[in-house]
């Protein structure tokens, strides 16, 4: 008990230091004021959170001492088909019950679902680190922006072109990194992400530099129309958020299905094998270089898709949307969601996009909160919110094994 109290005091002290900028202190050479109410609120929150975690730990320790597991985790408790059905119904009905602001946030969530799942191919499945992933999102966005404003290429045609160009960019960055591992890979991908952004920023004649590109058209809807000239094709631009929402939903669903199929394919197994042991993978006949390149290219394609849609939605692109922070954000989604887990990544994307909107007041502390959340996750739930089954086995191998023995 005493040990617990000491630990609690240490945690509070540490949190006080960490959260100091949030406590509303005004410190100068002559002044020193504190917002006591804020201090109490913030530290109170920390104390409650700590208490909850301590309680959870106590419960699980108790459980380990030989009591039966109370039941499967969240992932197994929701029957998959049921769960997906409800999710689909909610997603389809959503815009009719929401205001424009909520629709806008929802569209962002869907974009980040696509990005998270795309990066998941590279990081979660193939086990390659990519710190410059947002570059492919930029490639998709600028591809559509440039094709549309200069050549009037419509959205639906630009989409596949954007995918091809993104895949090319994926191969371009993937190729030199194929023989690298770990740290080197991180640095090279980070550098590549920045190179793309800097090029966009400085290639004034094409990209308009930091001013960005204005006047991008929204996606169009085409329908046959009878006029004096006979049957022609009329179209409207789908600028309203409900339509855009449904397009985003389609993109997200395509991504979900695509990534699911890949995960369960021969290629998916090859990726897992490479992630686990590259030499062993080679010795079982996997063309590791080609498979890694494929992971980069497919990951890039989904980012390109999302990027083109983003440009069509906002109808304006500029390089500051594609900073490193965005790459980090997508990586957070993948890690938080539990590498390789599709439902986990959907949930994490929702959490990471929606929570900051809810806590608008605390916008300045966003990164602090992310850092804190990631740290807590790594300590308490390293397998992510809704772990992929495989992944859960990896991180809790001994327990899972014991469980299986127990069941047998």
């Amino acid at each position, binding site marked *: 008990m005493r040990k617990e109290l000491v630990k609690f005091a240490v945690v509070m002290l540490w949190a006080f230091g960490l959260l100091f900028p949030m406590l509303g202190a005004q410190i100068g050479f002559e002044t020193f004021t504190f917002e006591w109410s804020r201090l109490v609120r913030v530290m109170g929150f920390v104390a409650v959170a700590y208490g909850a975690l301590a309680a959870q730990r106590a419960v699980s320790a108790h459980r380990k001492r030989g009591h039966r597991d109370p039941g499967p985790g969240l992932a197994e408790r929701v029957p998959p088909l049921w769960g997906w059905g409800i999710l689909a119904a909610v997603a389809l009905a959503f815009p009719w019950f929401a205001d424009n602001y909520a629709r806008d946030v929802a569209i962002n969530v869907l974009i980040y679902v696509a990005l998270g799942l795309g990066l998941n191919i590279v990081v979660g499945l193939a086990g390659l680190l990519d710190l410059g992933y947002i570059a492919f999102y930029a490639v998709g966005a600028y591809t559509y922006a440039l094709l549309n404003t200069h050549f009037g290429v419509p959205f639906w045609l630009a989409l596949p072109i954007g995918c091809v160009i993104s895949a090319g960019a994926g191969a371009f960055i993937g190729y030199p990194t194929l023989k690298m591992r770990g740290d080197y890979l991180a640095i090279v991908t980070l550098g590549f992400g920045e190179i793309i952004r800097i090029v966009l920023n400085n290639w004034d004649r094409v990209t308009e530099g930091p001013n960005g590109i204005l006047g991008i058209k929204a996606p169009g809807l085409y329908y046959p129309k009878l006029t004096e000239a006979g049957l022609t094709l009329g179209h409207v631009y789908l600028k309203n958020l409900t339509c855009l929402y449904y397009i985003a939903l389609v993109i997200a669903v395509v991504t979900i299905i695509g990534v699911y199929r890949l995960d369960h394919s021969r290629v998916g197994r090859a990726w897992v094998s490479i992630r686990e042991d590259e030499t062993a*993978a*080679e*010795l*079982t*006949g996997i063309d590791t270089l080609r498979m890694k390149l494929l992971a980069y290219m497919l990951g890039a394609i989904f980012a390109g898709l999302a990027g083109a849609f983003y440009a069509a939605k906002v109808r304006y692109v500029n390089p500051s949307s594609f900073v490193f922070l965005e790459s980090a954000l997508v990586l957070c989604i993948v890690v938080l969601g539990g590498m390789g887990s599709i439902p986990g990544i959907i949930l994490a994307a929702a959490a990471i996009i929606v929570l900051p909107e809810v806590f608008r007041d605390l916008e300045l502390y966003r990164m602090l909160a992310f850092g804190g959340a990631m740290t807590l996750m790594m300590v308490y739930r390293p397998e992510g919110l809704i772990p992929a089954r495989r992944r859960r086995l990896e991180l809790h*191998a001994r327990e899972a094994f014991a469980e299986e023995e127990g069941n047998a």
Partner: protein
Amino acid sequence: MLKVEEIHTYYDHIHALKGVSLEIREGEIVCLIGSNGAGKSTTLMTISGVLHPARGRVLFDGQDIAHRPADRIVGLGICQVPEGRRILPRLSVADNLEMGAFLRRDREGIRQDLEKVYELFPVLAERRRQQGGTLSGGEQQMLAIGRALMGRPRLLLLDEPSLGLAPIVVEKIFGIIQQINRDGTTILLVEQNANLALGVSDRAYVLETGRVTLSGPSRELAHDERVRKAYLGEQ
């Protein structure tokens, strides 16, 4: 069937193989013995195409495969059980075995081979749903051998299958290796345990610091004075 001619393999600037030549005929068990760091694993990795020789040729059925990528060499029917087993610890036993058949498309044949592996190693059948990493050392070695067999090899390369195993398990595994050979697979066996290796093999090569220093029928080498001194621990 396999003919290695004067291969030189480097790790950056380390000259690990300094002109190794050996030959394996169809149906044989050939063993390669030598002390730590002699270059045994490097030889196998060069045959498998994970490493490529700077000079020399590796002829398989008369074709030079020295510069083919590893996956193509597996496709030709050369499978390796690497040193330290290198199974995928987080995948199930069944998934590990399935990975061994990655290049094959003949579902029916794969199913039959899986049955065969389970017959050869009944313990793997019992544990098919268990994670590879939770198997004992001996079981992992069996899994590694099983995985290589799933590639339906014509030539099986085994790198120190006795490493870290109790004598009784080693005996069992060597029995199975002989059985695999009787069933028609040619074997190149790397071993530190020279006694054992010379006992099961037809011919042997002795490797020392990147060179073959001795070779001949295993029975003769087992009586060779130099071998007895250096590898069989006699004074």
